[in-house]
């Protein structure tokens, strides 16, 4: 394995259809280390570059369960174990009154897990990324779509890959500096 001089090659497209098509072909060609970029979520694009499922839902489920248990235990501990008090003749463990808070803690933890999980798995926040070196990449948040095949891909070869990308009739192709 030799140290790549570039991060990868990036092709720019002007529509979701094109980038989707391009991604599919690149995958068919055997490229794996690549990523597509778009100003809005393009249905099927992730699958096209071979990214199929995320573990996020599991994450959230666990969060929810932990939230529920801790929420109820907090109240049970306070009202029954730590400092039991006769409040309005109610039993110490008047569990029906504990449900609302249990529910809230459930939602809270689940939601936190969803957001934090998403950011973590996406590796965000991330101030620097090579793709930002491409001048035109600015427009990925406006109206342009990009496909970037990375140098780490075993099939990556600057000339061949360049040729291949150009065959997908993009509006531009640029090398991405590391």
């Amino acid at each position: 394995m030799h140290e790549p001089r570039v991060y990868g090659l990036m092709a720019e497209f002007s529509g979701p259809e094109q980038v989707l098509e391009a991604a599919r072909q690149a995958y068919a060609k055997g490229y794996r280390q690549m990523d597509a970029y778009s100003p809005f979520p393009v249905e099927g694009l992730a699958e096209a570059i071979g990214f199929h499922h995320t573990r996020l839902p599991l994450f959230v489920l666990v969060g929810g369960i932990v939230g529920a248990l801790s929420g109820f235990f907090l109240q049970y501990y306070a009202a029954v174990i730590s400092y039991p008090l006769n409040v309005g003749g109610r039993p110490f463990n008047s569990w029906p009154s504990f449900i609302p808070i249990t529910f809230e803690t459930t939602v809270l933890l689940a939601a936190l897990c969803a957001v934090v999980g998403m950011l973590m798995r996406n590796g965000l926040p991330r101030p620097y990324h090579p793709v930002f070196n491409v001048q035109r990449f600015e427009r990925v948040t406006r109206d342009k779509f990009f496909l970037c095949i990375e140098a780490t891909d075993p099939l990556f070869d600057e000339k061949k890959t360049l040729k291949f990308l150009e065959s997908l009739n993009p509006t531009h192709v640029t090398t991405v500096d590391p």
Partner: protein
Amino acid sequence: MSNNTQLDIRQIRATLQSKQGSEYWRCLEELAETEEFREFLHREFPREASVWDDSSMGRRQFLMLMGASLALAGLNACTKQPDEKIIPFVRSPEFVTPGVPLSFATAMVQGGFATGILVTSHMGRPTKIEGNPDHPASLGATDAFTQASILSLYDPDRSQVPLNRGLIGTRDKFLQALSQALQAKKASGGAGLRILTETVTSPTLGDQLARLLRQFPRARWHQYEPVSMDYAREGARIAFGRIVTTRYHLDKADVVLSLDSDFLTHGPGAVRYARDFAQKRKVAGGKQTMNRLYSIESSPTNVGAIADHRLSVRPHDVEALTRRIARGAGVLVETPQSGNHDTWLAALVQDLRTHQGSSVVIPGLYQPPAVHALAHAINERLGNVGKTVSYSEPVEIQPEQSQAESLRKLVSDIRDGQVDMLVILGGNPVYDAPADLDFGGALASVAFSVHLGLYADETAAECTWHLPQAHSLETWSDARAYDGTATILQPLITPLYAGVSSDHELLELMLGTAEPKSYDIVREFWRRHSGSRDFETFWRTSLNSGLVAGSTFPSRNVRVRMQEVQSLPPGRAVPGDELSLAFRPDPTVWDGRYANNGWLQELPKPLTTLTWDNAILVSPATAGRFDLQNESVVEIAYNGRKIAGPVWITPGHPDQTVTVHLGYGRTKAGRIGSKRGFNVHAIRTSDAPWSIAGIGLAKTGAKSRLAVTQHHHLMEGRNLVRSASLAEYVANPVFAKEHQPSAQPSLYPEHEYDGYAWGMSIDLSACTGCNACVVACQAENNIPIVGKDQVLAGREMHWIRIDRYYKGSLDDPEVVFQPVTCMHCENAPCEVVCPVAATVHDSEGLNVMVYNRCIGTRYCSNNCPYKVRRFNFLQYSTDEPTLAMQKNPEVTVRSRGVMEKCSYCVQRISAARIEAKKEGREIRDGEVVTACQAACPSQAIVFGNINDPDSRIAKLKADPLDYGLLTELNTKPRTSYLARVTNPHQEPGTSA
């Protein structure tokens, strides 16, 4: 002003001499100008929180921080037990155990008459007044005035220094002036010397006056009191040819007729009468008999409220009715032929006749002598004398037949220039003398006048000299009760303020004794008159028990002079179209002497629930006739004199007449009492002190807001106060429990209360709505007053309130009282909703309020069906140093933003528990007595351990009459009520 500051007395005297102009000084520390005092001054003169207008609240807020500490520092300087030996009721004072309160027996004197009391003293600070169980006029209970008098002791507005024509004076200067004045008098045998006192029953004072009159033969002694017993005395003179004191024995009376008398709430012996009356009234415990009360009244009173039959007539019509009753009873008087209320009177007369010897007729102080004379005659004819009524020598010393007459004489003598020296011992004649006498004007022309009083009041301002009088808890004295029983008053604390402290000392000075001490004077008198060989024992036991053994006046046999009575000319009949007016002493500030007592000012007056003001009471019909609304100001004119005040429409008030109360419109009462209400003395003349006819009433169009605590007066058909007639009760003892919605089953298992389970029972048949409990609770639990504005805003703080509902017609409604405390529900709705567990249940079933945990969400109050919780919306508790001294150290003083409520006097429960634990036993039944229970004259309130089957409370809870309030909410209240049973006559047309 801490006690460890050294005060240089000489320097202080010097400062005093150098003072010019009206510079008041509050205490020695000020003159000494100690650092602490300057600091104290910087805080301005502190004030009772809420009576103060809005603008000063911010400052108070800031003061809160430092106030307390400063105040306390300032206080212990003043609080010490007097040097003389005073004898505590239970324990001897030699070893004062810190934290263990002592209790001393003394007496509370009003209108000259004594009620025996026990005063609780914490480390030399009197904090609470209870009745003296051994004293005939109290039997352990008290009235509202007595409860509140402890506050007057600490009133910061009390006169604190001798005044010479309004400027600061000193004791020495006064003594010089006095001796000079007396020098002249010695020569002339006292010509031009006059003494003006209120009613006197004090044997010592009487003796001193007698000696003074001997020394100055040409001096005169006058008596005046705005609420006097002139009519009673005159009535007795007509009936018996001599003045006697009448005593009633209501514990023997089955039928009671009140002739415009409020014998249960006002006057000497009222507390005792209420007790005796209630004994015959209560039916709980399976009794099948009870007394019956008829009331003929010209202004709504508590007596009328609980009467089985109430007749509401104009003041002048009472005599006519009395004559007809008298005739029915066999007194051959001439009677008017008018035939109103025939059935009513017939039933009454029949009832009286069938209860010969067990009935009693009680004439009111406000009715003319004739009515009293007739009442005596009726009682004699019915053979009640010696059974339900007895007579004794007059309890007053040298009773004036008419004090009004006595005062008129004094004034006319002054006008004739025969008076150049007047000594006023107590009282406030400039404010409350009859308008026609213009006493104030006359007083100005007296060369040398001295006023001895608690306050630098209206009279003080008109006198040459004013001397601060010591409160009855500060000095030695003695007085007699309604039955003559003498009590030696002992001080619990040295006078807070300097000066000639008591009337005894002043008189003794005039008699020429140097530096007299009340202690020596009183003790000396009794040494001479005790008639016991071992004086020390006599002295000690008398002080200890709070009464002089064997001093009760024996009853005397007197015969009514029937001819005189029967030949009495009928009083003037007032034409129906004339509007008449009744004067009454105020139910809370009496004749104005309590005007500066915040507790009494804020105490809801019975029936009207009015606070902080007096009003012109009119009946709904009369209001309609003159097109009057509540609070609309009207002007009342009589003989060219005028008063103006707001109207309060009072159901049950007689038509064509209005009622006004004394005691308001004070100008120099103090910060609490000045400029409140209107002064009715402006139209009150010496010839008609209690009722006038032919007044003019005119709307002014103005409005004046009145602060009442109860706005809605109907029960809305709710099953709150349950009542039945005796007959119905006998027929169906469980009537109270009928139509009782069943409590819902609970989802949850119940908490077990083994051990003590505290509960309260309130007998609605016995409650007279006299308010004693309300003030007692306020005194015991450091409940602040909030002021008129806050009451208007609906924020009064009383922990126990007396709900008053009307039933039946608007013009002659039935009135029911219902004292409401915290119910201490076992399933307390308030507790469940508190987010911080600031109100929870303890193991004995008390619903406890944890002040320092409360964050003030007020949710508990919203969720309390009984609305008994009170909230400190602002900083209500005061940082006033002297007032702080009154606070009960066993009870937390609550700060702003904290909820509070009735605690069943938990501090008393724990005190009893500690005692019991020390002796290794259970708390005995009756050992825990709540403040309201202790004060209640009719013993309507019972408190105790429900789990103890032998306890009184357990028995009452088991009584068929027992019912709980709003039990359908499944709150399981620990406070329950005994349904109200009345005893109406069976005759038709006599329904109450």
